[in-house]
């Protein structure tokens, strides 16, 4: 058989393409459920990571994938979806919202998922984040304490940032810097910026040397995504302050009131 005849070449190419396509699509279909389950559990891991539910031995790693679902159901009290005006959107499942798709919509049509967590009597609001890095999307979750100002924890991840540079945003060294930072300055939203050099104050964290574009991406992402919830938070806030005993203050030292506040807050949320 002459393997260099035109007809043979065409036949070979055709058969090869069909065989390869069949193998790959068969594999893709068979493996899809496993992959989807991994992605889902990872999302749960990352969400509860921000409220400190982590690996018992190594607090820099998320909780194991096997426990993720159980812990998620234990701590996440409520999942809601709000819009940019701060209204709760009915009939949308928060966990299923794809941030990548939402960010392509016009601002006023976006759905913003909000996870309300309860842990040790405290309420935390966990917001998903998504933005652009240098090579691809970056995303993460950030939890805010019930003063609606102080950041409790954060986790970041990325699709294809440079290892050792931009990819460092997914390390706990980077995300831990956000703990205790504040998103409000005199009641106005200022977000938290990732800065070059030494970070100072309550609204800055250290960037990654050599990862400037990724760092800027994180700053922009925080600005845009947290900002979108401000309308909703202001609504919660005004409901709170209508209660005379519980005016919100900027101070972090409000431990005695906070558990009480947490309950009230949850009630207001439930009432909606």
């Amino acid at each position, binding site marked *: 058989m002459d393997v260099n005849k035109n007809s043979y070449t065409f036949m*070979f190419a055709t058969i090869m393409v069909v065989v390869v396509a069949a193998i790959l699509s068969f594999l893709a279909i068979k493996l899809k459920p496993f*992959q989807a389950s991994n992605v889902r559990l990872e999302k749960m891991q990352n969400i509860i990571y921000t409220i400190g539910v982590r690996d018992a031995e190594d607090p820099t790693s998320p909780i194991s994938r096997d426990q993720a679902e159980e812990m998620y159901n234990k701590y996440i009290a409520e999942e809601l979806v709000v819009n940019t005006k701060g209204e709760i959107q009915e009939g949308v499942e928060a966990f299923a919202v794809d941030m990548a798709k939402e960010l392509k919509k016009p601002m006023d049509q976006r759905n913003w998922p909000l996870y309300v967590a309860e842990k040790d009597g405290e309420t935390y609001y966990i917001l998903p984040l998504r933005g652009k890095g240098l090579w691809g999307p970056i995303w993460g979750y950030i939890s805010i304490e019930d003063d609606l100002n102080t950041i409790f924890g954060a986790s970041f991840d990325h699709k294809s940032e440079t290892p*050792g540079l931009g990819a460092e945003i997914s390390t706990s060294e980077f995300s831990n810097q956000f703990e205790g930072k504040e998103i409000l300055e005199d009641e106005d939203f200022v977000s938290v910026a990732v800065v070059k050099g030494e970070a100072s104050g309550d609204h800055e964290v250290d960037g990654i040397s050599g990862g400037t574009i990724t760092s800027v991406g994180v700053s922009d992402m925080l600005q845009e995504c947290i900002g979108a919830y401000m309308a909703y938070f202001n609504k919660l806030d005004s409901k709170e302050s209508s209660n005379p005993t519980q005016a919100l203050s900027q101070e972090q030292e409000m431990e005695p009131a906070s558990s009480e506040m947490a309950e009230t807050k949850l009630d207001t949320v439930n009432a909606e």
Partner: protein
Amino acid sequence: MSTAAEEVKEAVKPKEPLFSKKNRKLITNPLDGDNPITVQVLGICSALAITVKVKPAFVMSVSVLAVMALANVIVSLMRNLIPSRIRIIVQLVVIASLVIIVDQVLKAFMYDVSKQLSVFVGLIITNCIIMGRLEAFALGNGPWKSFLDGVGNAFGYAWILIAVAFFRELLGAGTLWGYPVFEKLGLYELGYENNGMMILPPMALITVGIIIWVQRSKNRSLIETN
């Protein structure tokens, strides 16, 4: 850095009868005298991209080993059927399909490893060592020899990658496999600072250059004379 070389020796010895002297050369040659990176100067692109840390370099090496060995065997089995005019395309299809399969399987069953690899999986396809070996070896030799050739070249690639990553991670970040070596040694208290240059891609090229220099000054037969 010598772990890859040691692994090869361990793997070779117990199987001695299967390996004729000629076959053994297929594995040992690419480690030094015929090294794909330092002598053939192939695969430099990925060697620069993923040698910032040892762990990804290691995972990349293992993936390249798997893809290279399998692709060599598959192409070698088909070598008498492949029309020579489209052989490059056929080789690419084989490599790309293997890479996709590896990627999909990792995503389903070893999700953490798959996240480690992320973009590097795609880089395997562009690794010219793999196509180079298919073109230069697998098309003209039997499957067993091609398998050995693939494994040998993958190890040759691996030890350079891990050696470069070793120095870059140690000097650039003060860690090894993520473990803070310099911090535990207390070097920072003595005023030592990480060399940020080592993290940047040019230092990978310079490190590879130093390895080439050391290698050629030891093995003078590698020095090209014009």
